[in-house]
């Protein structure tokens, strides 16, 4: 049964969800989109970030977003270490395709199983003052539980975009994704640049994980729901385009939201997969890809 009111609400909810999905996909947009490293362990780092926020929130009552931000240096270092191992074992020897993928899959697996051993499979949630409240704008309800992650997601996207466009290291990262040899000739060490980029990508996962646990309770296997979404958004948006990631994320969010409201939510998971396959078949470079 259709009504404009319902449609408007579905679209708005979808846009908010899209902002959150953008936060989730930024890391992969950087690591896979720009550096061309198929880090399929990214969803596991996302969940790891969610659990880190949970621990801080339940032990010290720390607001989840603050906890997420506080953990970014830790995750940055973690990302740097992971990249170094990856580089040393695979990239240097030119074997990234098979072994690198398996390596990341192993990491994904180890993180997920370790989390379930440590925390069990009970659903974990966070508390914060603004979760559970909502505001009403002319018939359209907006809940803070979605609004805050959306705003943070947009802020993250903007910050990353500016970083890549305006700062030295940011531009170096863009350069490394285009032409490594030229970069070396210009005096910058591509390996160091890639380490920084990978670290940033994983740090983004930490903050996105904190947003995730604000929206819904998590268990260790929640990461599998995001694999499809992350890569669908990156491919649809275009490899290497941060702005494209945001646009694709909003598109995915709105389509999922409309499907859920009008056709029943049973198939919304297939939406991301369908979008991924369609993008790969029709326009693999995505909407804004290079």
């Amino acid at each position, binding site marked *: *049964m259709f*009504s404009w*009111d*319902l449609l408007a*609400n*579905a679209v708005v*909810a979808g846009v908010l*969800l899209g902002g959150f999905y953008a936060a989730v996909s930024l890391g992969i947009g950087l690591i896979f989109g720009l550096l061309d490293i198929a880090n399929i362990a990214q969803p596991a780092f996302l969940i790891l970030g969610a659990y880190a926020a949970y621990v801080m929130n339940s032990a010290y009552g720390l607001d989840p977003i603050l906890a997420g931000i506080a953990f970014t240096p830790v995750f940055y270092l973690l990302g740097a270490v992971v990249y170094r191992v990856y580089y040393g074992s695979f990239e240097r020897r030119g074997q990234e395709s098979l072994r690198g993928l398996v390596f990341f899959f192993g990491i994904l697996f180890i993180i997920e199983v370790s989390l*379930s*051993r440590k925390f*069990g*499979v*009970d*659903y974990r*949630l966070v*508390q914060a003052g603004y*979760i*559970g*409240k*909502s505001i009403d704008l002319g018939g359209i*309800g907006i*809940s803070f*539980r*979605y609004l805050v992650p959306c705003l943070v997601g947009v802020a993250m996207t903007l910050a990353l975009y500016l970083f890549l466009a305006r700062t030295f290291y940011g531009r170096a990262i863009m350069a490394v994704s285009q032409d490594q040899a030229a970069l070396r000739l210009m005096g910058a060490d591509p390996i160091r640049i890639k380490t920084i980029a990978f670290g940033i990508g994983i740090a983004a996962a930490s903050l996105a994980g904190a947003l995730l646990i604000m*929206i*819904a*309770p998590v*268990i260790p296997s*929640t990461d599998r*729901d995001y694999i499809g979404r992350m890569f669908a958004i990156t491919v649809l948006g275009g490899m290497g385009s941060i702005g494209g990631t945001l646009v694709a994320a909003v598109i995915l969010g709105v389509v*999922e*939201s409309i499907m*859920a*409201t*009008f056709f*029943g*939510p*049973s*198939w*919304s*998971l297939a939406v991301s997969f369908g979008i991924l396959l369609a993008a790969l078949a029709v326009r693999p470079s995505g909407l804004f890809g290079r």
Partner: protein
Amino acid sequence: MTRTRVLIAVAVATLVVIAAAALVPVARAADPIKLGFGMALTGGLSANGKPALLAVEIWKDDVNKKGGLLGRPVQLVYYDDQTNPSTVPGIYTKLLDVDKVDLIISGYGTNLIAPLMPIAMERKLTLMGMFGLANNEKYQYPNYFQIQPAGPDPQTSTAIGFFELAAKQNPKPQTVAIVGADAEYPQNALVGARELIKRYGFKTVYDKTYPPSTVDYTPIVRAIKATNPDIVFVASYPPDSVGMLRAAHEVGLQPKIFGGGMVGLMFTTVMTSMGSLLNGVVNYDFWAPEPPFLAIAGVKDFLKEYQARAEKAGVDPLGYYLPPYSYALVQVLGQAVEATKGLDQQKIADYIRANEFNTIVGKVKFGKNGEWAKGRTLMVQYQKISGNSIDQFRGPGKKVVLYPDEFKSGNIIYPYAAALK
């Protein structure tokens, strides 16, 4: 070179250790009676599997303190089924053919009982089922008995109290919205709900399902609110129960009666984190710390022992859902063994089928297909919860039993909105 050699040595050593551990025979005490089972100690159902195991262990200790069964000590032999049905045939074959257990019980949950049925039937064993829905409907095996008090009609058992309460209200509510997760228990509950809606003459205005991985419940709840239902019946698993309830509060969904078959709301971690968001919800349950249940002989001692051990075991600290029933399950088996004075599977089964048992959850009698002869799914309402402390849930008053009458401990606050104040 040395590095690869070290690797090989480590790999071989690991395998040798594992093989040795498997083959070394376990030292045996004075001819014990062995009770074997698989249990969900890891995986999706471990949140209930681990407390169930703890309850069985407490029973074993209680029985052994009084001299054991038939004068012999009881020994538990169990393995983790990882909530994966495909491990069950292997586990029970090992229990029966290698460990040579005398008695078996099932693991926790419909999916883990199902693969056990053919094995039990083939070997003509008595099978005590721990919380499975309609496992015996296809097989109609006479030696199967199930401890979840769903009763002879498992599909309507969850919802019947809910819709009966709704129908009793004055003026009678008219419209119903039903929604549920794409998973086994919720789907069964929805089938039952549809039947009951017809029986009580309600009108369905919304009937949809959603995948368990849904992140955003707001569109669903909004769509439900748009149909303006008097009654909202939800059949969900723990994460969606939480998500739906939160979304309902945010969207301002206030039917006259809300709840139904929401699994997980009764888990202690969920109760403490949801706090007052639970107020007014009318939900199914099997046990509540209300006077009619606390008065049953033996349950207070059991809970005291359970709660003392639960903290260390890292399981649900209150144990107000599955543990009393797990204990009751092995109580029935133990009493049957004593009464038939032996371990003959057929005699035990015949005894269980023919008699009524006194357990810590009350009187238990089995009927058709091994289910309870008379169903006892409760309808409770969460009332007057404030804040998030666990202590308010220890005793009566916050989860009032509304149905059935013989266990009623309070009155419904109707409509739903009245309980939110």
